[in-house]
C-alpha cells in the first residue's frame, strides 16, 4: 500500500472507532501539516486589527465548588493590587497577573438563596452561578433562565464555529441523589441555553480535542470536500424535515425539546458549511491527549489548555469551565487531603479543616493562574488572548459552612471589559446585605461585548460600574 492510502485508512479508523486511541501519527496526518500556520487570516481578524480594535471580546466563566475559606481569601486592604498585596492569601498564585485582576468583594446572587425552598444551596448556587434566576425546585423538571455566557453566545452566533464551549472535570452519573430535591441538572451545569436546556460539558480531553481539531482533512481535494459537504447536509436536511413534521404533533413542552434538537442539527450544518469554506486551518500547538490525567490539577489545566487553543483559533469566543460539580465531595488526595471537599467545607470553624480548605482554595486558584499564564502567552497579533477576554472566577457559595449567596468572592481577569483592572474593590453596603446583584456585573460584561441588555436574571437592572 502506498503512503497516501495508509494515512487515509488510519484516519478512517479514528472516525470509525472513537474509543480506540489512534496513533499520534494519525492525528498529525490530519492537522499536523498545518500546525505552524499563523492565525491572522481567521474570521477577518486582520481587518479588525487594521481598524485599531483589540480583536473580538471573549468570555470565560470559571467555576469551583463549595466556596472558600474567606479569612485567607482577600488581600488585607482594598485599592491598587500588586504581587505583594496577594502574598499570604489564597490568591498568591496570581501574583504575576496582579495588574490584570479585578478582585470584587460584595456582590450578591439573591437567586441562589432559599426563598422558601429550603435546603439545596449547592444546586441553587450552581444553577444560578451564571443565570441569576431562582430555579424551580423539582426532582426532574427544570425551570431557570439562560445563563449570561449564552446571552453572549447568541449575540456572537454564526461568527465562530462553536457558539460556546462547555468543559469541566466532573461528569456525572455517579451520585445517587444530587442536592436536596433538585434535579442533578442544576448542580452539574452552569451554562443554560434557555430555561429548560442545560448545556452539558465535555469532560474527556481527548474527545474535546478531537471535536475541535480532529474533524477535517487538510489534504482532501476540493471535490472530495464538496461531495462530503453534500452528503452531510443531505442527511441533516432529512432529519430536520423529520423533526419539523414531528414537532407539529407534539405538545408545547415537547415542541420545545424538538426545537432544541433542531437547533443542534442546524449548529452542525452551520459548522460544516463554514469548515468547508475555510481556506486555512488553525491547529493546536500540542498533541492530541490520549488519556484523562489522574492528577486533578493536570487534568484541569489540560482542559483549559484546549480551551485556550480553541480561542486562539477563534473556534469560539465564549467558554465555561467547571472544576467540579456543585457541592462536589471529591477528595483531593493529590494534595494530601483524605476528606471530601464538600464534607470539609462544612468546617464548623475547626481550624484544621479551615486550613485544609485554604489549601484547596490556593490550589484551585493556581489552576486559574495557569490559565492566565497560557492566555497571556497566547499572542493574538500584538496583544495577548487575555487582553481580549474577561475571565470570571467564583463559586456557588461564599463560605461553604454557611452557604451564603452574599458577598460572593469574585475574581475578574483580563482587559476585554471596561472595568479597571489591577485593583481590589469592596463594594459591600455598610450592613453587608442587599448588595448590588452580580446580575448587574453580568450586564456590564454583556454590554462591554457589545450586546447590551435591559435586564438580566431575576434582579439585574443596570450594568455594574465601579464606585467613583
Amino acid at each position, binding site marked *: 500500500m502506498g503512503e497516501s492510502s495508509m494515512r487515509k485508512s488510519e484516519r*478512517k479508523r479514528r472516525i470509525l472507532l472513537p474509543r480506540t486511541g489512534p496513533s499520534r501519527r494519525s492525528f498529525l496526518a490530519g492537522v499536523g501539516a498545518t500546525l505552524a500556520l499563523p492565525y491572522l487570516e481567521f474570521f477577518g481578524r486582520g481587518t479588525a486589527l487594521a481598524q485599531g480594535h483589540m480583536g473580538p471580546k471573549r468570555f470565560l466563566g470559571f467555576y469551583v465548588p463549595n466556596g472558600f475559606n474567606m479569612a485567607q481569601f482577600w488581600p488585607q486592604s482594598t485599592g491598587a493590587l500588586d504581587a505583594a498585596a496577594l502574598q499570604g492569601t489564597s490568591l498568591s498564585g496570581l501574583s504575576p497577573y496582579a495588574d490584570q485582576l479585578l478582585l470584587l468583594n460584595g456582590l450578591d446572587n439573591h437567586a441562589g438563596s432559599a426563598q422558601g425552598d429550603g435546603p439545596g444551596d449547592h444546586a441553587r448556587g450552581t444553577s444560578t452561578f451564571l443565570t441569576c434566576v431562582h430555579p424551580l425546585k423539582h426532582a426532574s423538571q427544570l425551570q431557570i433562565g439562560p445563563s449570561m455566557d449564552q446571552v453572549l453566545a447568541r449575540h456572537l452566533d454564526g461568527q465562530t464555529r462553536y457558539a460556546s464551549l462547555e468543559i469541566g472535570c466532573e461528569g456525572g452519573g455517579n451520585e445517587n441523589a444530587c442536592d436536596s430535591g433538585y434535579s442533578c441538572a442544576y448542580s452539574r451545569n452552569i451554562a443554560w441555553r434557555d430555561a429548560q436546556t442545560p448545556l452539558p*460539558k465535555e469532560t474527556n480531553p481527548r474527545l474535546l480535542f478531537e471535536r475541535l481539531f480532529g474533524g477535517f482533512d487538510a489534504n482532501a481535494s476540493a471535490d472530495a470536500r464538496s461531495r462530503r459537504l453534500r452528503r452531510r447536509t*443531505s442527511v441533516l436536511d432529512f*432529519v430536520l424535515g423529520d423533526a419539523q413534521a414531528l414537532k407539529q*404533533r407534539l405538545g408545547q413542552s415537547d415542541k420545545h425539546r424538538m426545537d432544541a434538537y433542531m437547533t443542534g*442539527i442546524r449548529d452542525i450544518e452551520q459548522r460544516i458549511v463554514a469548515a468547508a469554506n475555510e481556506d486555512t486551518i488553525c491547529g493546536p500547538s500540542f498533541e492530541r491527549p490520549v488519556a484523562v490525567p489522574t492528577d486533578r490539577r493536570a487534568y484541569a489545566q489540560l482542559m483549559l489548555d484546549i480551551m485556550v487553543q480553541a480561542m486562539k483559533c477563534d473556534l469560539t469566543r465564549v467558554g465555561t469551565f467547571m472544576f467540579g460539580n456543585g457541592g462536589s465531595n471529591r477528595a483531593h488526595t493529590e494534595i494530601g487531603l483524605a476528606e471530601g471537599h464538600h464534607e470539609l467545607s462544612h468546617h464548623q470553624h475547626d481550624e484544621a479543616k479551615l486550613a485544609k480548605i485554604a489549601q484547596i482554595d490556593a490550589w484551585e486558584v493556581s489552576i486559574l493562574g495557569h490559565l492566565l499564564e497560557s492566555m497571556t502567552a497566547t499572542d493574538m497579533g500584538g496583544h495577548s488572548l487575555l487582553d481580549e477576554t474577561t475571565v470570571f472566577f467564583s463559586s456557588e457559595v461564599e463560605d461553604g459552612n454557611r*452557604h451564603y449567596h452574599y458577598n460572593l468572592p469574585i475574581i475578574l481577569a483580563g482587559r476585554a471589559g471596561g472595568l479597571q483592572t489591577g485593583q481590589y474593590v469592596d463594594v459591600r453596603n455598610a450592613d453587608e446585605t442587599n448588595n448590588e446583584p452580580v446580575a448587574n456585573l453580568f450586564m456590564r460584561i454583556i454590554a462591554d461585548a457589545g450586546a447590551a441588555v435591559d435586564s438580566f436574571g431575576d434582579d439585574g437592572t443596570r450594568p455594574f460600574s465601579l464606585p467613583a
Partner: protein
Amino acid sequence: MSRQFGNHIRTWFCASIYLILTVGCDSAVTDAQESVPADMGASTMVDLMPPNPMVDAGVQPTDWTTERVFRALEPMCAQCHGEGQALPFFDSLAAFEQGLVGDQRWVVMGEPDESTLLDFLVGQGDGLFAQMPPAGPTYEALIADDPTKPTLADLADWIRGLESLGEPPVRVCWPEPNAKALHRLNRLEYNHAVQSLLITESSPADNFPSEDNSFGLDNIADSLTVSPLLIEKYDLAAASLAEEVLPDRLGAPTVFRLEGEAMMSPVGRAFDDYFNLWSAGLLTGEIEIEEPGDYTLRVRVGGTQAGPEPVRFEVLVNGSVLGPFETQAQAPAFEIQDIGVVELNTVVGFLGIRFLNDYYCPQERFDDGTCPDAGDRNMHIDYVEIEGPVADDIPQTPFESEFLDECDLALGHASTQCAQTALGRLARLIWRRDLTALERDKLWTLVNAELEEPGGLQMGMRQAVHALLLSPHFLFRVETSSAPGERLSNYELAARLAAFIWRSVPDEALLNAASDGRLDTNEELAIVAASMLDDDRSDSMIFDLGEQWLLTRQAALVDPEYDLFPDFDEDLRQAMLEETRLVFNEIWRGEHSLLDLIDADFTFVNERLAEHYGLDGIEGDQFVEIPLPQGNRLGLLTHASWLAATSQRTRTSPVKRGKWVLEELLCSAPPPPPPSVEGLIEDVDQNAPLRTRLEQHRADPACAACHQHMDAVGFGLEQFDAVGAFRTEDHGVTIEPAGVLLGEDEFGTAVEMAQSIRSRPELGPCMLNKVITYALGRGLMDEEVCLFEDIERQAHDLDYRPNAIVDAIVTSPLFTSKGVSRTDSDEEGQ
C-alpha cells in the same frame, strides 16, 4: 400545582391505612437565620419569628377565624408543612382548610375534644411525632409571651365554633396517567439499541454526556434534555456506526473507463461515442491501474436487436473469459451491466468484449424464408469500466449478513431493488414502526443521490443508516398515535416494554407481535412481557436497576482512605459488587418477594469476601451461595457494597445510611435540614466516637425530631465500618447498635433491624414506587394515587414477586395509556 409523589407513599399510608402523623420537624427556622451563625441550640423558636404586624398596630385578636389561626401558626409550621412537603397544610389557606381543618383525623368541627390537633400541640399525639412543633418546648411554652398567637383555649373555641365546610374534600384521583415528556433514549438504551439493531459491539454512547439523574435514576424523561453537544455526538455516532456496518470496500476507489470508440477490433467501426461491432468479433483495449487487486467490472452496452435472441457477448479479462451475457437494450439506448469482481494481477490489463451472435437477415431472404426474422443484429459498446481495488479482505459485517445477504451492493444499479427492500426492513426496526410511503421515498432519495458515484449503493445505504439513526424517530420514543388518555398503539407499547424490560428497543419479533395485534389486550401484553422477562435480555434491566437503586454504581467508585482501610483493594471491591448483583438477580429470577432483598436468608460470597466477612471455609474466586443470618449479616443493608457506598472516605455516615433506608425503603424520609445546619455539630471532640458526636442531634430540638429516626437506623449499622467490615468498637468505645425503628420497633442488632424493616407495611409500596418510577421513566404525581393503588393491590396480593410487579405495571393505564397534560400551557399541538 401538582406535587410529585415522592414522600407521598408515606402520606398515602397515613391517609388510608395507618393513622400516624409522620412528617414533622416543625422547627420554625426562617430565612433570617441564614445570616446568623448556626447556633441552633441557643435559639428558641419564638426568637426567630418575624415581628407580627398586629402587635405594632395594638390589635388583640379575640375572634379566632380560620384565616387568623392559619396566619398565626404558619410561621411556626410552614418550614415542614409548606409547599412540596408531605403534609403541606401551610402551603396556602386553601390547603389549611382542606388538608387540616377539613380532615377529621386532625380536626373534628365543633368537637375540640375529638380533634387530635390539640393533642399534638400538647405532645400527646399518635405516631412518631407526638408533639408539634416537635421535640422542643411545647406549643404553650413557645407562645407564652406572644399575645398574637392563639392559646390552646383559643384554639378549642375556634374548633368549637367551626361549622361543616360542606362535603368533605374529595381525594383528587386522575383516571388517566399524567403526560410524560418526550422520552429520549439514555446512553444505556442507545448502546443496546444500536448493538441489537446493527449487530455491532460498539458502545458509542459511552462518549455522550452523562444523564442528569432524577429520583436517583438516569432514565427519567424530564431530565433527558437535549443540548447541541449531545446532538453533535449523535451525529458522530450515527456516522461512525453507518461506516462500521457498511464498510468501505473500495479502498481508494478509482474508476478506469475504457471508451468503446477507443478500443480496437478487426470488425465494426468506432462512432463518436460508441463502437459498433457489426459482426461477431472481439473488441479489445488496454487499461493501466495503480495497484493490482480486485476490481468491479461493468460495461455499458446495447445494440440493434434482431432475430430470435438478444445480443449475446462474452467479456475477456487478461485472457480469461466471463459470460456469456446478454443485453436487451435497443439502440440508441444502452444499459449498464455489472459483470462482477475480477482480479487484476498486473498494472496493465487487457479487456475485451466478444460479440457472439451476429445475425443478419435482409428483407429478401426473409421473404424467401431462408431466415426467420428480418433485421440486422449488431452490438454497441459505450464503455468498459473497472472500479477498485475492492478491499475484499474486509469480510461481510454481521449487519450485512443479516440485512444485505441477498444483495451485492458493489453491483450498484443492479441491486437497487434488493437494497430498497432491505432498507425498508431496517427502517422499520430502527424507527420501531412502519414508515409512511412519503418517509420511504425521502429515505430512498438519500440512497439515490449516490448511485452515480463509484461504490454508490454502499455509500447511499450508509447515508440512509446515518439518517435513520440521527432522526428523532430513533432517538426519542415518539408517542403520537393516540389521543391523551387512550391506549397507546401497539408499536408504542412494544417500545415501552423493550425500554423497561430489556433497556433497549424492540427486536423484529416484538415489532411483529405489535403489528400482528398480539399486544391488543392487557392479557396478551402480560404474556409478551412475561416472556420478555424470561429472556436473557432482561438481565440488563435487573443489572441496571440494581446498580442504581442499591448503590452498586457508587460502590464501584468509592475510594476509601488507604491509611484507614489498608485491606480494601480492587479484588474486594469486585467481590462486594458481585455479591449484591447476584443477590438482586436471584431475587428476580428465583421464587422470591422483592422485599426479601432486605432479609434474604442467603447471599453469595467468594473467598475474598468471606474473609472480609469473617466467615471460614469458602475457597476460591467462585461465588457460592451461603445461608444467612451469619457473621452478623442479613440482607442488603449488611452487604459491604451498600455499606461502603453510604460511607465517607474516612468514616461511616450513619446519617447517610439512615436517610437512605428511610427514604428508599420506607418512604419516610424527614424533610432535609434547613439551610445552614448541614454537617456535624461544632464544638465536639473530633476524636470521640461518631455516635457521641451525633448524639448532639438529640440534644438539639431543631435536629432531634428528624434525626432520631435516621440516626437510629444508622447507629444500628455502626458495627459495619466504611468498607463494610464488622467491628465492635469505634475509637475504643464499644458500639451499641440497639435502637428503635421509626419510634416503634425495637431492635438489638443490625439483623433484627433488617427483620423489623422487612415487616414494616411501608416497605412494599415504597419499593414498588421505585420500580414504577424506573419502568415509566417519570415520578408519579399525587393525583395518580388511585392508579398506583391498583398496581399496589395486585403486587401485594402476590407477595411483591418481581414478575407480579412487572405484570401489574405493564397492564396499568400508567403504562398502557398516553398521558394527559394537565397544564394550560401544554395543550396538544394542532
